[in-house]
C-alpha cells in the first residue's frame, strides 16, 4: 500500500477537477436537445495533464448517425476560451452498436483508459453495456415485485401475475446466498435500485419498505420474480457477513445484511 508521501496529490486533484468539468459539460448537453436523449458519456484516453480531454457521447435518434466532433473549452462556465478542452465525439447508440458489430477496430480506442461518466441503462443496447463493462447489478441478481396479499389472492396463475406486473419496473432484486437442492427454499439478500445500480438493503434501510412492515404485522408477503418464481417470505434475519462484499455492488456500513428466507409457492388456484 502506498504511503502518503508516495501519493501524487496534485495529479489526483487535477484528475478530480477535470472529471468534474467534463461532468458539467455532459450535464449541459443532456438538456440541449429535448427530443434526443443522452444515453452514455465516456471519458476516454484519459490523460488529465493534457490540454485535450476526450469525450464520447451517445445519443438516441437518427441525426447523430455520423461521428460529429467538437472542441470545447472546459472552463466555458467562467467564459474562458483557453485550455483544457474537451474533444467531444457525438454519435447515436444505434450507430455505435452497429460499429461494434461491423468494425470493432474503429471503436477500440474508446475503451483505452476510459471512465463512464454518465449512462442511462434504458437507452443503451446490451452490446454497448457489455463493451464498456457498465455493471449495474451483481451476478445472479433476479428482479421482481412485492405482491400485496390482495394482489396474491387475486392471482390464478403465474402467467397472469407476470402479465399484470410485467409492465411495471421491478422494485426489488434478490441475490441468493443459499438454495435447497430441490429449489423449494432459499435465502438471499434483497436489493433496490439506487441511481441505476442494484444495491443491497441494510437492516435500517429495509424498515422503510412496505413488504417488510407488512411481514412484521403478520401479513403473508410474496415476491414474484422475472421468469416466474413465486416465493413466500418465511423470515428475515440480520447477519454480519463481511465475505458478501465481493458478491455485491455495494456494502452496508457494518457488513450487516437482513437476509430473507423464502419458500417457493404456487399461485392460489
Amino acid at each position, binding site marked *: 500500500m502506498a504511503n502518503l508521501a508516495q501519493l501524487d496529490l496534485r495529479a489526483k486533484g487535477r484528475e478530480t*477537477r477535470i472529471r468534474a468539468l467534463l461532468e458539467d459539460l455532459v450535464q449541459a448537453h443532456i438538456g440541449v436537445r429535448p427530443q434526443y436523449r443522452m444515453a452514455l458519456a465516456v471519458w476516454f484516453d484519459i490523460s488529465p495533464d493534457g490540454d485535450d480531454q476526450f469525450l464520447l457521447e451517445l445519443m438516441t435518434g437518427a441525426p447523430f448517425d455520423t461521428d460529429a466532433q467538437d472542441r470545447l473549452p472546459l472552463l466555458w462556465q467562467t467564459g474562458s476560451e483557453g485550455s483544457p478542452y474537451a474533444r467531444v465525439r457525438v454519435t447515436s447508440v444505434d450507430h455505435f452498436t452497429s460499429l461494434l458489430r461491423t468494425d470493432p477496430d474503429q471503436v477500440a480506442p474508446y475503451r483505452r483508459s476510459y471512465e463512464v461518466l454518465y449512462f442511462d441503462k434504458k437507452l443503451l443496447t446490451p452490446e454497448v453495456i457489455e463493451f464498456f463493462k457498465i455493471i449495474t447489478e451483481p451476478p445472479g441478481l433476479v428482479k421482481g415485485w412485492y405482491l400485496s396479499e390482495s394482489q396474491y389472492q387475486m392471482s390464478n396463475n403465474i402467467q397472469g401475475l407476470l402479465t399484470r406486473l410485467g*409492465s411495471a419496473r421491478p*422494485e426489488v432484486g434478490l441475490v441468493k446466498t443459499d438454495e435447497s437442492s430441490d429449489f423449494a427454499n432459499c435465502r438471499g439478500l434483497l436489493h*433496490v*435500485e*439506487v441511481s441505476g445500480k442494484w444495491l443491497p438493503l441494510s437492516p435500517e434501510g429495509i424498515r422503510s419498505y*412496505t413488504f417488510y*412492515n407488512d411481514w412484521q404485522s*403478520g401479513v403473508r408477503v410474496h415476491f414474484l420474480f422475472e421468469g416466474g418464481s413465486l416465493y413466500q417470505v418465511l423470515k428475515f434475519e440480520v447477519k454480519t457477513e463481511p465475505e458478501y462484499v465481493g458478491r455485491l455492488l455495494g456494502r452496508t456500513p457494518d457488513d450487516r445484511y437482513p437476509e430473507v428466507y423464502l419458500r417457493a409457492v404456487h399461485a392460489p388456484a
Partner: protein
Amino acid sequence: MTDTLKSICEQCTHLLDPQFEFIPSELQRHKEIILRDIGEIVSAAAAGQEKTVTVLAGGIFESVLYSFIQGQIEYIAVRRGGSFTFDPDGNLDNYISIFNRWFSEVFTIPDIVVQYRNFVHINQELQYPSDTCQIAAPEMLRLLDALLGKLTEYAKS
C-alpha cells in the same frame, strides 16, 4: 393486520415535528413551502388518501433536496476539486442523483421514489397494478421520514 396510513404517519416523528437545520437560514420561503406541504401530507395520510400521499411525498422529496443541496454547494465543490453549479431548473431525478453521489453515507434514496412520484402522470400509473398506491404511499411516507431524520442528524453533526 397492516397499519393504516394514518397510524404509519403517526409513527413518522420527523414528519410530525420537522426540523430544518439542514436548510440554509436565508431560504425561509423554502421552509415555509415544505412546512405547508408536510402539513398537507399529514392531513392526506390521516384521511387515508393514498394517491395524494404518494405524489405529494415525491414533491416534498424534491423540495427538501432542492433546498438541502443549495446549502451544500461549497462542500460539493470541494469534493469535486473546485466547482459545483447548482441547477435550479433540475428535477427530482437530478437532485436524487446529486444527493446519492455526495451524501450516500448519510442516506440513499432509491429510484422507486421517482417512479412513484411519476404517478402524477396517468401513463406512468397505468403501468402498475391497480392497488400499487396502497404499497407506495406508506413506503413514500417512511422513506421521507427517514430522509428528514438523517438530514437533521447530519446538520447537527
